[in-house]
């Protein structure tokens, strides 16, 4: 099977610093994949190696089956990267920038696709404006457009919504989702965990250059997060030996952590046995932030 991205034991050292300490992961074609981790975990280093911007000290990376070093021409044609930094060339207009980027990929007559990308990213009004004159959000859109000029099957977005206003963020995600529906593989790094939770099919978490979790978003949420149960009882104390973690006790209002739904039944059963009456009950579904913090604390 050909993976969209396949990393095998990738290591990267910068002098004494071990940025990546043997990362292996595979992203299937058509997946929406999240790459999460705290600052300095190695996300951008891994993306740089996938994109050919940096060279691995050891290990192999393939994009759509093409080795990023030995078969770099094919690998790079398959890949579109939206860099984290808001970079631009101040000499050119938006349209010139996109035409030049197409040319780098050997595309001669690409104007109709460029027009389409300009339209979808709502850059039409600024198409002939110099890059210098654009707002940060607009520059970010041009970066996305540049990553798409050669219609790459695999698109990597390195924190594309950092410092972006709500409206643009929504528009951007709508567009990226559409690309994913059309069959593009999407790899995303972000610090907004609710975004990752909403968008990603699967997630890898990196810490100190290692993969510390790699699973479907659903499994991660089920296995790591548990449920948070908020209760108000007719009394000030919980029955003894309830057997669950009590996160807060605020005079008759209790916040409990449950491992799963079976745990809920157990708690309700014990309460009934103790003769307690429930006045209010609220069950909070698992969230990725909780998973993330737990995974990071564990490793």
């Amino acid at each position, binding site marked *: 099977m050909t993976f969209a991205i396949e990393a095998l034991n990738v290591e990267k050292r910068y002098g004494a610093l071990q940025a990546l300490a043997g990362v292996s992961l595979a992203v299937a074609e058509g997946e929406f994949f999240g790459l999460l981790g705290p600052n300095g975990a190695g996300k951008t280093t891994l993306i740089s190696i996938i994109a050919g*911007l940096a060279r691995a000290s050891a290990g192999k990376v393939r994009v759509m089956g093409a080795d990023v070093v030995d078969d770099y021409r094919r690998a790079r044609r398959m890949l579109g990267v939206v860099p984290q930094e808001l970079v631009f060339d101040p*000499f050119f207009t938006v349209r010139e920038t996109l035409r*030049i980027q197409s040319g780098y990929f*050997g595309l001669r007559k690409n104007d109709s696709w460029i027009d389409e990308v300009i339209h979808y990213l709502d850059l039409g009004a600024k198409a002939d404006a110099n890059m210098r004159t654009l707002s940060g959000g607009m520059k970010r859109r041009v970066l996305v457009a540049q990553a798409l000029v050669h219609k790459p099957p695999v698109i990597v977005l390195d924190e594309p919504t950092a410092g972006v206003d709500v409206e643009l963020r929504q528009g951007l995600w709508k567009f990226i989702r559409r690309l994913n529906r059309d069959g593009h593989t999407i790899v995303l790094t972000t610090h907004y965990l609710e975004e990752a939770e909403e968008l990603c099919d699967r997630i890898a978490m990196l810490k100190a250059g290692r993969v510390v979790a790699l699973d479907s978003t659903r499994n991660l949420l089920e296995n790591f997060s548990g449920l948070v149960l908020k209760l108000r009882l007719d009394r000030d104390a919980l029955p003894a030996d309830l057997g669950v973690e009590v996160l807060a006790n605020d005079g008759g209002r209790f916040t409990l952590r449950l491992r799963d739904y079976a745990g809920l039944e157990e708690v309700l059963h014990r309460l009934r046995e103790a003769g307690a009456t429930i006045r209010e009950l609220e069950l909070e579904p698992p969230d990725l932030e909780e998973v993330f913090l737990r995974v990071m604390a564990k490793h």
Partner: protein
Amino acid sequence: MGSFTTLLYKETLRFWKVSFQTVAAPVLMALLYLVVFAHALGGRMPIYDQVSYAQFLVPGLVMMSVLQNAFANSSSSLIQSKITGNVVFMLLPPISYLEFFGAYVLASVIRGLVVGVGVLAVTVWFVDLRMVAPLWVFGFALLGAAMLGALGLVAGIWADKFDQIAAFQNFVILPLTFLSGVFYSIRTLPEFWQAASHLNPFFYMIDGFRYGFFGVSDFPPLASLAVVAVSFALLSAACLLMLRSGYKLRQ
């Protein structure tokens, strides 16, 4: 367009968009040199028979402008891209290191030649000049610009900040061009400084270029051409090795 032609187009368009600074300014500078030096030194500097000081000076100024601008083009373009970060736009696509080298060097040659033609076009209004061997003129201009374009690329890859490029320009390129016989014939120098001038590769470029105008030179033109060609080949090899290894570009 292919990767190479696009990168060449981009590099050429880049300097053309700011041609006031990249073409007009160096032309004016050369003209000022001509006016000041020809006035100050005309008649006081022994030159070849039948060649006035101003006539002697013009080819030197043309070649000096060609070389300095070829260097400035590749070095400043690359360091700007590195510092602003937009060099990623060239590193992400499938551009080979040979295409990268070729495009930057050729764009430098174009800038050098455009400025050189500009200087010539302006100075011929003031000085009566003929080319006795235009092929030599063109050959030295082409090879000299290519060599400085490659040197500029090496400097651009190596440098981490504008400061270092400026230092390279002011402490290496400028002294080497000024002391290469642009403003004087090295035969007028004491023996030691004549010998020292022969260690300066810029001397051969200026001298050979001038041969194309007057048919006389301080050094045999074919030997000068060989020196320039070998220097260009060595610099290109060094530059290509840097690019192939990803030195400072693909860390």
